[in-house]
Structure formats: structure tokens, C-alpha cells
């Protein structure tokens, strides 16, 4: 017997993250490693648990293996529950109309049965590609207080950047009267964070109507939200303050990792009352040798550092041999940088081996052509041969 829940969460984790290129060839974007020991999905999942949500459906589609294995029974997030817990929800065959998830709204539509089992009053829709800490229970209180049909979390962005976001135009008490996707001339700077609370009965109705419309692209931003606005449903903007970052591009993923090293960035991971949980590796503490230099960096367990590390994030089991230099870079789990290799402004994915004396990336100040500069990326499991030179902005998807 499944007991009724006041609210449950549906986490959209099926996206390919094509702008992360080599980093997402074998895994979905939410499974991309972040911040030394996490994966991106740890942030929304931990937020759910810390906000008191004990039932989370994770909608997967693109390369679900790593993500499903990572989530397992949900125990690391305390989501191995007798009533509820975490559920991986891939598209499945039905007696009629089997289909891939065609859009964000369609993915939820295909799982109406799952949601109905818990008979929730409210459903929280999240995406698995943002880094932030947020108490969703405060947003739910706001939603209830306003007796809203839909509440959308918004962030004030600089006006000049507003045209890159979905912008909510709201009146003073937060009621949304207009939604504009990437407006050329934004009227406000309230950007949608892709976090929605719906009163379930309303959402269900709109999902069914949307599904019946053959011209719809079955997307929350493009279809559901505009349709509800058109019908003058009660839609509110919930203002969020704090750190929030979309890590959907190489640059933003690199920046968000570097933000962890910046004491002025308001993303506090050390807060014991709002821990970010993750599946931990069983590795000993990391070792810093006597030749090593480690400054302004994050280093995870199992690392072996014998070279020079600055402004970098080292994931579990990364190895930096003597004489190697790693500056302004991200080394994902198990990456090895051999003797005298130099890695600057680069993202080195899991289990990459950078051969002796190889050079990856470049400092921007040493790059005469500013257009040619960017963070270099080496995809998972790739071997870079000794003395090879990988230019800045390169995207390495096979052994060099």
C-alpha cells in the first residue's frame, strides 16, 4: 500500500548535454563529475532530501547506465526508503503509443501513473544540470500561501545578460503575467531557473491537453507555461537569492568548479546543516609528497600529488607525478598526469593518462589570438602520448 505524499519531485535527467561534447559521450549531463567528489545530480538530489522530499523520480533517456548505477538504491542520499525513495524512470514500452521522451513535458506525461501512485498535492519539477543549494520547502510554502497553480523559481540576473534566459515578467506581488524565452528586449531580469512547483491536479490537466495537441513540442518552457498563462492560471515567481549556475557548457562547467576555490562566491559546501551527499569512493586520504606544491585547490581522497597544483580541482584517485604542473584545471576521478607534463586551463575527464612531458592547454595571457583561446578538454579514458601538445580550446575524443 503506497501512502499519500504531500509532494514529490520529478528530476529531468535525460538531457544529452551536447554542449559538453566529449564529457557526455558516455554519460548523461547530470552524471558529469563536479567539485572534486560530486556529480551534478547530487545538488538537486541533496536539495530534495534536505528540503524534506523523500520521493524523487529521475527521468533518464540519454546514456542512462552511469547515472542509474550511480543512483543505485539511493542510499547515499538517504533515499532508500520503505515508502518512496529514488526511482530511475526511463521511457518504457506500453500497450500502445510507446515512445521516447519527446520533450520535458512529455517525459512527465509518460510518468503520470508513477506520480498518481503517491497521489500528491504538489509536484516539484527539477532539472539535473544546475549547481545550487536551495530549500524547496520554502518555495512550497510560498506556493501554498499564494494558492498558486504554478510557482517558478527565478533569479535576478544582470539586465545585459537577461536576453540569454527565459524571462518572467511579474507584477509586484510576484504574479507572472508574461513569459518570454530569450527576449531581445527584456522587460525584467527575473530569469527562470527551471524549477517549478505545480499543483498536481492542474499540471495533470495541462499535460493531457498538451499531449493532445499534435503541434506542441511538449516542453514546459515552450508549451505548458505559455498555455497556463494564456488561461490566466495563478502563476507566481519565487525569487531565489544565492549561487546558481547552469553548467551546460565547457566554460560554465570549468567556471563553476573554479567558483568553489573562490572564497567570495556564495556556495558554501561546508555547511553541516545542508550537506551535499554523493556516492563516495573507498579510498585512503590523499597524499601530498615533499616535492609537491598545492595551493588554492580542492583535493579529494585517493589522490597522490607529487607535482605543482594551483587553482585546480582534483577528484578521487587523481595522480600527479613529480615535476608535473596542473594549474587552473579540473582532473576527474582516476586521471593521471605523468612526470613533467603541464596541464593548464583544462578539463581532464575520468581515467585519462597524460603522458610524460605532454602539454595540455594554455594560459590566456600566453595566447596571442584571443579567439583561439579556451579551456581544453580531454574525454574519458583517453591516453595522451608523451610530449604531445594539445592546444587551448581543443576537444580530444581519441588517443593522441
Amino acid at each position, binding site marked *: 500500500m503506497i501512502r499519500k505524499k504531500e509532494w514529490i519531485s520529478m528530476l529531468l535527467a535525460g538531457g544529452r548535454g551536447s554542449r559538453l561534447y566529449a564529457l557526455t559521450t558516455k554519460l548523461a549531463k547530470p552524471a558529469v563529475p563536479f567539485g572534486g567528489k560530486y556529480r551534478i545530480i547530487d545538488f538537486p538530489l541533496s536539495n530534495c532530501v534536505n528540503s524534506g522530499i523523500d520521493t524523487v523520480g529521475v527521468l533518464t533517456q540519454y546514456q542512462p547506465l552511469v547515472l542509474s548505477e550511480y543512483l543505485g538504491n539511493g*542510499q547515499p542520499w538517504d533515499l532508500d526508503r520503505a515508502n518512496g525513495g529514488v526511482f530511475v524512470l526511463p521511457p518504457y514500452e506500453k500497450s500502445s503509443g510507446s515512445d521516447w521522451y519527446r520533450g520535458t513535458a512529455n517525459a512527465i506525461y509518460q510518468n503520470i501513473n508513477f506520480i498518481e501512485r503517491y497521489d500528491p498535492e504538489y509536484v516539484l519539477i527539477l532539472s539535473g544540470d544546475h549547481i545550487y543549494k536551495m530549500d524547496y520547502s520554502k518555495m512550497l510554502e510560498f506556493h501554498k500561501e499564494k494558492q498558486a497553480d504554478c510557482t517558478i523559481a527565478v533569479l535576478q540576473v544582470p539586465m545585459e545578460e537577461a536576453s540569454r534566459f527565459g524571462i518572467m515578467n511579474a507584477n509586484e506581488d510576484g504574479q507572472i503575467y508574461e513569459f518570454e524565452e530569450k527576449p531581445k528586449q527584456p522587460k525584467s531580469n527575473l530569469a527562470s531557473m527551471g524549477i517549478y512547483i505545480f499543483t498536481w491536479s492542474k499540471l495533470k490537466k495541462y499535460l493531457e491537453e498538451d499531449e493532445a495537441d499534435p503541434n506542441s513540442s511538449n516542453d514546459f518552457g515552450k508549451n505548458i507555461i505559455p498555455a497556463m498563462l494564456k488561461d490566466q492560471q495563478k502563476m507566481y515567481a519565487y525569487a531565489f537569492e544565492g549561487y546558481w549556475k547552469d553548467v551546460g557548457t565547457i566554460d560554465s562547467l570549468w567556471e563553476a568548479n573554479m567558483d568553489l576555490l573562490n572564497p567570495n562566491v556564495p556556495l558554501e559546501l561546508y555547511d553541516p546543516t545542508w550537506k551535499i551527499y554523493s556516492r563516495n569512493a573507498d579510498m585512503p586520504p590523499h597524499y601530498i609528497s615533499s616535492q609537491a606544491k598545492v595551493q588554492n585547490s580542492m583535493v579529494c581522497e585517493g589522490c597522490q600529488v607529487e607535482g605543482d597544483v594551483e587553482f585546480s580541482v*582534483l577528484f578521487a584517485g587523481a595522480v600527479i607525478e613529480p615535476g608535473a604542473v596542473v594549474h587552473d584545471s579540473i582532473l576527474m576521478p582516476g586521471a593521471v598526469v605523468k612526470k613533467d607534463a603541464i596541464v593548464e586551463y583544462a578539463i581532464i575527464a575520468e581515467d585519462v593518462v597524460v603522458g610524460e612531458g605532454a602539454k595540455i592547454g594554455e594560459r590566456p595571457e600566453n595566447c596571442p589570438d584571443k579567439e583561439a583561446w579556451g579551456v581544453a578538454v580531454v574525454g574519458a579514458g583517453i591516453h595522451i602520448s608523451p610530449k604531445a601538445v594539445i592546444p587551448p580550446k581543443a576537444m580530444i575524443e581519441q588517443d593522441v
Partner: protein
Amino acid sequence: MREDTVLGIIFSNMHDDTIGELTNIRTMGSVPFGGRYRFIDFPLSNMVNSGITNVGVVTKSNYQSLLDHIGSGREWDLSRKVGGLNILPPFSNTHSGIYRGRLQALAGISDYIESHRSQYVLMVDCDIISNVDYREIIKQHIASGADITVMYQKLDMARADLLDDTTAFGFDSNGRINDVMIGPTVPGTYNIYQNVTVLSRELLCRIISETSQRNQISFKKEILQNSFDRFNIQGFENTSVSLNIHSLKSYFDANMKLLDPMVRSAVFNPQNPIYTKIKDEVPAKYGTSAQVSNSLVADGCIIDGTVENSIIFRGVKIAKGAVVKNCILMQGTTVNEGCNLNYVISDKDVTVRENRMLMGFETYPIYISKGSVV
């Protein structure tokens, strides 16, 4: 039911008195070690890695920290429907109570041992840090037809290493024990007992029943020393790296030996990982003035000072300008600006205020008790 199934028994309180400073508030099994572990993680992980999934942990006193650490045994994959981990506190039946020796401890859990169907029992203490495959000793035990098999290591023992309860074996040409010394005093090379013993469950039950009737206490004295004529007791030589803990000094040295890459790779063999309680700490963060060399540092640390030749546990904070050399700083230690620490063992949650100087010596590290503010 497989014939070679083994019940593991870990004695968490044996040898508590050898490092009284650290075991005042905890069992030997829950003494912190190596930056993120507790002693019991080693025998427990060894058992799991050797395929032993029925494990009883015998406790006596001060076991709250142990319960907190091992919980349901999930981190060791021992939270099972069939078998798994059992914590065996004293007073499990009306006749049992606080035991004085291993035989009494076993008598207190005789119901537990009898109720199992395992063929063999492997008994291990928490005073030796080693990454051992127990399948080897069990294999040898079965093949040799011995009644009891004990694990030993050939060691050069200095006078200071020889304690009252150090146990050394002599063997005849067939490998059977023909001499047992308890507390030898002359330095030299000995076959030192590692407090790891294998015997059949049926024999153990018989021993428990016989010895409890005679009010015998010591397994070493009554069974190994006085009964090697009666039982065929064989030795199994453990050749893997072992760190023996029998004093605060040896505790200090054992931690420091982890800085040696050979020792570290033997103890933390990635094929046989050592499991421990997960704390969900953030990776360690190094500041702009951090200078760290030859040290092991766990997750959750924030380091902005100088650290050399040290073992830094989870969640330690070392402020800018502080100097920490040759130290073991346990979980949650805070070292403030301008401090200078050399040869210090700080227990959990110690705070060292600004500009304090604490100097021990290699042969006599200073110990600061849990929660102290210096």
C-alpha cells in the same frame, strides 16, 4: 550450504589497556587511524574482502563510539538479510557479564556461536593493521588438518616491543607448535602471534564449554600454551605489511609509516579496499598560503598553513601561519593562526588557540585528549 563457510569474530576491546589514552573513551576497535579509519575497519574489511559475511563484533565497555562507527554495517556491505554484522555486547545472557579474558568473552556469546551453521570460526583482534586475505589461512587450515591455526609474523623484537602479553611460537619440523612463550624478555627474532586464529566451530564450542566449567580465562594460556600437546596447532605466516599497535609510541609510528609509499600501497591495496564510515565531507581545500609536504590529508580539511610529515584526519582546520610538523591531528581538530605543533597527537575536536607552541619528541609524542581547548 558451502563446506568452507566461516564465521568471523572480532574482539573490539582486547588490548584496550595498551593505549589507555586513546581507549579511555572508546574501544580499541574504534581508535582513529590513518586519516579516516578506525582500527576495526581493517579486520572488518579484510573479512568482507575474504568473502566472510557473517561477522560478530564482541564488545565489553566504552562501545558507544564503536556502535556509532559501524552502525548496521552497511559501509562494509554487511547489512544483510542472511548473515551480516552482529554486535555482541556483554550481558547477552544471564550468566554472562563483563569478561576478563577471551575464553570468558567467548562463553558470553556461546549461544551466538552455537546458533551458526558455519564450519569454521576466524577470530581476530583490532591491534594489528594489515591488509590480509584470510582465505589463505583458512585454506591452509583445511589442507593441513590442524585443530587450530594461528597467524604469526617473524619479527625482530627490541626490548621495548616485548610486552607482558607478547606471544611467540616455536614449531617442530612438521609446522606444529611445540613451544609457546608469553611475555619473552630477551630481544631477538620471534614468531609473533598476530591474534588471528582459525578453528572449527565445533571445536570452539567444545573448548568454550570445557573451559567455562573450569573457570579458565585466557585462550592463550589455557589453549595455546597448555594444550599444544593435545591439539594440533599450526602456524600460518603472514608476510604482508603489518603495523602492530601496543603503545602510544607504536600508534604514532604506525600512522607515520603510512607516509611510506610501499607501506601505503600494501595497506590500501585498491583490489582489497579498506571500508569505513562515510561522512559526506567536502574534498579538502588548500588556501593561498598552504604549504604541505609528505602528509596524508583526508576530506573536509581546510588548510592554509604549513603541514609536514603529518596525518590529517577529516574536517581538520589549519589556519594561515600555523605550522604542524610530525603530528597526528584527528577529526575536527582546529589549529589557529601562529601555532607551532611538533610531535603532537590531538584527539577528536581539539582546538589549539592562536600562537600556542606544543612540542613533543619523536620518542614521546604529546597527546591532547578529545575536545580539549589549548
